């Protein structure tokens, strides 16, 4: 067990993958000598060489497109997209190639590509550096999408993602990069919890609170605060965003009858909509209130001096918990 920051934990996981499989190669902008703008790949080029940890030309479609070619050649590429807002130039290669090649070739060609994307806000950055584009990928058949909320998962799940024969988009909550946590570096990825599984991180009985990535910490804090007011909140860390591990949420909602979902991404067509819709389908007769979504607003990511308004925080989440409980809340008395 060691105390590692989130960024170091991913670094350790990447190192392990590079050590264990000579076919693993890392591609990205500034990931070599600089070690990435967040230092997640720090030291890896020095230790594994320029052919394993590749500083690419400045072109995201090129990064992902060449990863496809490397996968054809038997490699397991790990692409770093420098920031969430810069993944769109690669969208075509991701949606039309990475996601579809296995289906297109009826299983002949595997695409064991991992696309790492630091995402989310809260770090005071300019435009394009704080977005939460996960719903574009969860809506894309053929991709697996995961997000991590703590250093241990970050360490284990990056290795699981790389080991997966399916393409995986791996969302890293950049505002948690410096948070520390215990990491068991001896953890075996094959016996660790599957990356398709969600995890109940705080048990509770009154309300189910579902989230992922950066807001898991916020949600746990909210659960603690709610406890003081006598409300028992069960917090679920989704970990897998596509597919979502619905049985875990279902079991919780059957117990609590109340559901709150929170994410930084905009609400309209966000992942929260899928969870609300699916859980309503699966648990209609158990629900006491409509599922509540507490999300970023449906606006382009605002400038940094406004971002604290945009991002769901403890109080907004607790207001949502009140709504799910039918207690007085900011929308009380509003019709519909």
């Amino acid at each position: 067990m060691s105390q590692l920051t989130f960024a170091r934990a991913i670094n350790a996981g990447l190192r392990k993958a590079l050590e264990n499989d000579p076919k693993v190669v890392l591609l990205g902008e500034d990931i070599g000598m600089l070690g990435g703008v967040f230092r997640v790949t720090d030291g890896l080029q020095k230790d594994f060489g320029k052919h394993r940890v590749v500083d690419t030309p400045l072109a995201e479609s090129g990064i992902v497109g060449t990863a496809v070619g490397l996968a054809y050649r038997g490699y397991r590429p790990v692409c770093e997209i420098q920031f969430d807002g810069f993944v769109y130039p690669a969208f075509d290669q991701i949606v039309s190639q990475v996601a579809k090649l296995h289906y297109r070739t009826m299983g002949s060609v595997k695409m064991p590509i991992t696309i790492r994307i630091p995402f989310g806000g809260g770090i005071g950055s300019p435009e394009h550096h704080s977005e939460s584009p996960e719903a574009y990928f969860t809506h894309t058949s053929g991709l697996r999408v995961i997000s991590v909320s703590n250093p241990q998962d970050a360490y284990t799940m990056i290795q699981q993602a790389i080991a997966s024969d399916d393409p995986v988009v791996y969302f890293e909550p950049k505002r948690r990069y410096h948070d520390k946590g215990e990491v068991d570096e001896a953890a075996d990825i094959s016996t660790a919890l599957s990356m398709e599984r969600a995890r109940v991180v705080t048990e509770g009985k009154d309300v189910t609170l579902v989230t992922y990535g950066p807001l898991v910490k916020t949600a746990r804090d909210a659960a603690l605060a709610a406890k003081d007011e006598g409300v028992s909140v069960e917090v679920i860390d989704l970990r897998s965003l596509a597919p979502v591990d619905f049985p875990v949420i279902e079991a919780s909602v059957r117990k609590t009858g109340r559901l709150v979902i929170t994410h930084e991404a905009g609400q309209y067509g966000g992942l929260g909509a899928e969870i609300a819709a699916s859980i309503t389908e699966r648990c209609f007769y158990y629900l006491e209130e409509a599922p509540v979504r507490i999300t970023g607003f449906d606006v382009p990511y605002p400038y940094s001096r406004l971002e604290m308004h945009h991002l769901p925080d403890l109080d907004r989440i607790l207001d949502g918990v009140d709504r799910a409980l039918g207690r007085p809340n900011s929308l009380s008395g509003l019709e519909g």
Partner: protein
Amino acid sequence: MLTEETGPGHPTNGGPANGTGSTLRTGGNLVQLISPEGERVHRPEFDVWIKDLGDEQLLALYEDMVVIRRIDKEATALQRQGELALWPPLLGQEASQIGSVRALRDDDFIFPSYRESGVAYCRGARLTEIVRTWRGNALYGWDPHRIKMATPQIVIGSQTLHAAGYGMGILNDGSDNVTITYFGDGATSQGDVNESLVFAASFQAPVVFFCQNNHWAISEPVTVQSHIQLADRAVGFGIPSMRVDGNDVLAVMAATRIALDRARKGGGPTFIEAVTYRMGPHTTADDPTRYRDPNELEDWAAKDPIKRLRTLLEAKGALTEEQIAAVDRKADQVGADLRNSCITLPDPQPMDVFEHVYSTPNSWIERQKDHYSRYLASFSGSGAGGSGSGLAEGTQEGGVR
């Protein structure tokens, strides 16, 4: 790698004798080794690359071209008869396809566009594999790993980046493989193709960029994409290029061999512009009379790639009446096989729609699959399976209803 001093558009001259890194500058002139009239044109620096080709080999190239033209014709007919949903003809581009694919080693990997059915045939794709995509019986043609060729790429230009990445993999492996990618004149405008040139040049990856300039991108003439020769494009990325007569199978083969040799020896990527012509419509869904001057077609008919090799061979006495007949019989046979394997293709099964989305079970898809099989099973009236009716709405009996 070109040095700083080289300046724009001046890749080092020099023939094959220069070995690694050598490249031939073709400038504004087309490389042509057989004239449209079927005469052998001598260009020593290219001739040296095809001097091993005797009559037998030339005859084989002739046969290849005749056969793939027959494939094209048969497939076009099948589409007209409703047996194929669509077909992208290769008519007129036989020399470009055959001259290049026949220069490759079996273990070199190909990233094609959608028009390289002739390449696929030579590579060992089965006839069913060639047509089933266009019949709508499968998304895919063949197993890319078996024949070392990716399936047809429909998104213009995407495959060129795959080639650059594959080439980077070859470098990592320390292998002397090469990868070749096919794309059209229209494709040169796509960001992906240009990024691919950047990556291949940056890493000096063993990639042959094979651009079939057939003068049209659907209805747009090549001048919409560029006012200058496409071969010049690559030079600005530090990639040497050649411009060859794409209707001349020998010129194409010589150029491809030069590029392959260069790449195998660590000399990096090469760009070949094969100047040819799309004699047919863009696809069977297209009507070129809306946008194309019929005279243009006539001009190009005079440059036919098969006719000129045939004239050359006949003049040499290397193609007898019997040989011509034998080749035609072979082509007839392939045509008949193609037709037969097309119309006897078994229909897919409804539940196939859910196969291979992922390589391991996925809870969401499994559930959808389960629900749809229950739905199909609910059609008590229609026996096992049932079927959707998206196209002919409301034509079937209700299930549980």
